[in-house]
């Protein structure tokens, strides 16, 4: 069972590594790094929405919290290893608390959307109003609308003067994305992951089987927050400045669009969506004939109308051969298991 799981991971891993080395021949690594960050952020929402059925309108909050936590910790600590962990941990804990409040309070659907949205707005407002000198955490001034510049960016662990930037940051970000992706692939095959998917399908049934749905949803939500935080850390290191714009409504909405365009229920979908839309925005940003957001809106409308499942799931559907084969293989392996147990 275990070795089989590893086998199914080799293919995607090799493909992803090849892609990592191929992409820089087309685009600059500076742009690519941002696309990878978007991919990671898309993946974080794709996990909790596509597999846990939790539609969070405020995924940007965890992204921004990760970036801010990293920046503030980096100013106070210097060497970037611990700040990077803090940048992941803070949004994870916040997501855990927010999730516990929502899921133990039995809030569902619309109310959950409203709460996560409002949570993002509160952070956005708050960060915008922290221009005064009294808003200081350690040595770090929050800086209000101007954000926080001038913190230590990522460095080789233990060597504060060896900065990871440019090409190296791209390869680091992409490698982390691959690691997170493979981890999630494994995670969704574990019993916990399988119950999470079951909760998406039918919460009541899972509860009547005797599983505590609330803690499971909370943990999944927290994991999603942590991944968004990691994306935030990478972003902070790439942009070298964090601003309240990270918490903006536009940012939150965009992540949802990435997921819809890329496709839910497949881990690659939201990664692809984030990178694709990011690229589109980058290319459109180079012209000034037509407004960027207008095109983004149009893309969303077209997708909802004509490709409601998103790009990746549709592509998978168009390749029915591969799917049938994998199903046959699965059945065969089941038979093998049964025999070996008998």
């Amino acid at each position, binding site marked *: 069972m275990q070795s089989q799981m590893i086998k199914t991971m080799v293919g995607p891993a090799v493909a992803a590594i090849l892609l990592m080395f191929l992409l820089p021949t087309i685009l600059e690594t500076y742009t690519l790094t941002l696309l990878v960050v978007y991919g990671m952020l898309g993946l974080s929402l794709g996990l909790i929405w596509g597999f846990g059925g939790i539609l969070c309108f405020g995924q940007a909050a965890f992204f921004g919290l990760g970036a801010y936590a990293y920046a503030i910790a980096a100013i106070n600590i210097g060497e970037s290893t611990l700040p990077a962990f803090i940048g992941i941990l803070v949004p994870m804990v916040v997501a855990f608390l927010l999730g516990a409040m929502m899921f133990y309070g039995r809030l569902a659907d619309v109310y959950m959307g409203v709460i996560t949205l409002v949570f993002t707005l509160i952070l956005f407002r708050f960060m915008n109003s922290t221009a005064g000198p009294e808003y200081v955490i350690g040595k770090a001034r929050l800086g209000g609308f101007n954000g926080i510049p001038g913190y230590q960016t990522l460095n080789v662990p233990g060597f504060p003067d060896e900065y990871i930037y440019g090409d190296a940051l791209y390869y680091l970000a992409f490698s982390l994305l691959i690691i997170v992706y493979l981890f999630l692939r494994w995670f969704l095959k574990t019993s916990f992951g399988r119950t999470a998917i*079951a909760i998406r399908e039918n919460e009541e049934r899972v509860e009547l089987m005797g599983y505590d749905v609330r803690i499971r949803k909370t943990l999944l939500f927290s994991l999603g927050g942590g991944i968004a935080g990691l994306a935030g850390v990478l972003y902070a290191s790439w942009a070298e400045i964090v601003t309240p714009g990270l918490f903006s409504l536009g940012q939150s909405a965009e992540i949802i669009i990435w997921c819809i365009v890329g496709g839910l229920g497949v881990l690659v979908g939201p990664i692809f969506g984030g990178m694709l839309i990011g690229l589109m925005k980058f290319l459109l940003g180079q012209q000034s004939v037509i407004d960027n957001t207008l095109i983004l809106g149009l893309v969303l409308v077209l997708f909802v109308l004509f490709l409601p499942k998103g790009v990746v799931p549709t592509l998978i559907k168009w390749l029915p051969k591969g799917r049938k084969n994998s199903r046959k293989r699965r059945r065969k392996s089941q038979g093998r298991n049964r025999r070996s147990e008998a």
Partner: protein
Amino acid sequence: MADIILETAGLSMRFGGVTAVDNVDFQLRERELRCLIGPNGAGKSTFFKCLTGMLKPSAGEVFLDDQETTGWDPHRVAGLGIGIKTQVPSVMDGLSVHENIWLSARRRCSVEEANRKAGEVIDRINLGRLAYKELGQLAHGERQRVELGIVMAGNPWLILLDEPAAGMTGEEVEHMADIIRELNRNAAVIIVEHDMQFIRSIASKVTVFYRGAVLMEDDVSVVLSDPTVRDVYLGKKA
């Protein structure tokens, strides 16, 4: 006589001004098979939901296996080893038959054991050839059977079924009765049901609900020949 494994004392459930369940004292013994019947709105399903924790009763107590479980959440009630099937088929449509049943088995045993158990249960409900099919594509009767399989896989000592025969064909109902009889060998069963044919076919002790209270409790033949019960069902005044 075997031990009492389920007991309610003065159980009441009020929704605003409506008393759906009114001061019900109910007892169930080990490996008993009991049917709850009564006209629409008699309070059977509400009573059922108070037992499973899906509703928190307004007054009274529920005891399961000598533990007070009043107001527990459904997952804790189910965690005691109680299999629950709701009125509307409650299954995971996007997953395969195997996955549905495996998840239920996994709650109580290791991964390997759950794999074996899932295979066993699928054979018992006779859905082997559909094991890896997405549940949403199956017929209504098959999905009902899968839900029964989910209940089975949890190895319960008490099974609560809300209208298991609803919407099934005659043949499927017979098959369902067989499965229930088999389940009853190892577990006590409570069935909320409308279908008199079905109740006769599994022949057991029957509790009749009327206006939220227990009207009578006796053997199925006695109950069905009772004039009061017949009047209640035909809508005459009791």
